[in-house]
């Protein structure tokens, strides 16, 4: 009786077995890298807005403070989007005929708010509060990136739970002094570990509770 398989079949069999062994691992790796990639997290993706507002121009070149428009950031969970009146405080006098600003003028005339689109958004089961972060040593750019360098607004960080926990597990690595919270170009100094520990004490933060579930979830 003739052989069913030729000798070469041994090789295919071995390769097949090897493939089966590495398949689950490589599928896992593929999934893992996809969920870490900007294709999934949206990092760096610009969001189309009703008016192409430039933070680089307003916050960077003109040096207008974040809190001029985002008035709620020190007091409330939500940082606040400015009402149309805030835009028109200056644009009632300058660039009054700019086509780019037509939606802003229309919004004021019709008393209908502009529909700005969210750039960063957290799931509804996360109870994030801006005020508690900016009044306890976390600066804007730690989460939003160097906004003063962005012509159009893009998400700067993945805002996944793992990313939040990076800081909540080791807050001292990123904490800033009070005067540096709104500084878009702040970088941790060389002696940040020591400074960070002192700042934890300064703000009265009990770091051991920052990873409690109920800190972010209810």
């Amino acid at each position, binding site marked *: 009786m003739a052989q069913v398989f030729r000798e070469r079949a041994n090789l295919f069999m071995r390769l097949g077995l090897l493939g089966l062994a590495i398949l689950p691992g490589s599928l896992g790796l593929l999934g893992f890298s996809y969920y870490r990639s900007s294709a999934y997290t949206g990092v760096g993706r610009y969001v189309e807005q009703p008016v192409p507002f430039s933070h680089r121009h307003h916050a960077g070149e*003109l*040096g*207008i*403070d974040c*809190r*001029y428009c985002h*008035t709620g950031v020190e007091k409330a*969970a*939500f940082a606040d*989007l400015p*009402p149309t*009146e*805030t835009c*028109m*405080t*200056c644009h*009632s*006098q*300058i660039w009054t005929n700019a086509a780019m600003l037509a939606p802003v003028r229309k919004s004021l005339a019709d008393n*209908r*708010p502009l529909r700005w689109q969210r750039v960063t958004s957290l*799931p*509804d*089961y996360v109870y994030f509060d801006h005020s508690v972060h900016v009044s306890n040593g976390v600066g804007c750019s730690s989460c939003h990136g160097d906004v003063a360098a962005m012509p159009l607004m893009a998400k700067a960080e993945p805002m996944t739970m793992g990313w939040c926990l990076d800081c909540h597990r080791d807050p001292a690595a990123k904490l800033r002094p009070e005067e540096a919270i709104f500084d878009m170009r702040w970088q941790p100094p060389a002696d940040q570990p020591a400074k960070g520990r002192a700042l934890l004490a300064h703000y009265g933060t009990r770091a051991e509770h920052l990873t409690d579930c109920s800190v972010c979830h209810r």
Partner: protein
Amino acid sequence: MRRAIILRPAAAVLVASALAGCREDMEVQPKLTAYSSAAAFDQNMAARQPPTGTLDREALEREAALGRPPAPSEALIRRGAERYKIACTPCHGEAGLGDGIVVQRGFPQPPAFTEPRLLAADASHVVDVITHGWGVMYPYENRVAPADRWAIALYVRALQLAQTGKDAADPAPAQAVQR
């Protein structure tokens, strides 16, 4: 055979409910959050305008704070300096000369705080202008809290004293601050 008749639908129900669990999206819950849209409300906005003729709980306190100048203190000047830098510098400039960056880009120039009319004005005038606006300046009622308006008024007075060259040890400027 009979066991299979019971087990198969049971398994199907179990699988179906497990799959339904995957669809239950906790990320987008049926609740209204800041700035979310709400088809049932005016202009499709979850944030609603208070009905005409109603006051919020803090309205009276805010109103009272406007008529109650706080005692000048170093902390209040520091607060005023911080708030001035946020809300006023774009037009009035760091030193209050009316040379802010937005003015450099074509906005009508506001008067310097050292103008005789403003040197003679009460602190309440500054508070009033922040509240109601003045000329081409929009009201800042919704952007600067009443207590902060007094703090800014105090800082404006400090800027005036610094620029008119009066000695800080002179009792007259201290009275001017309180005026």
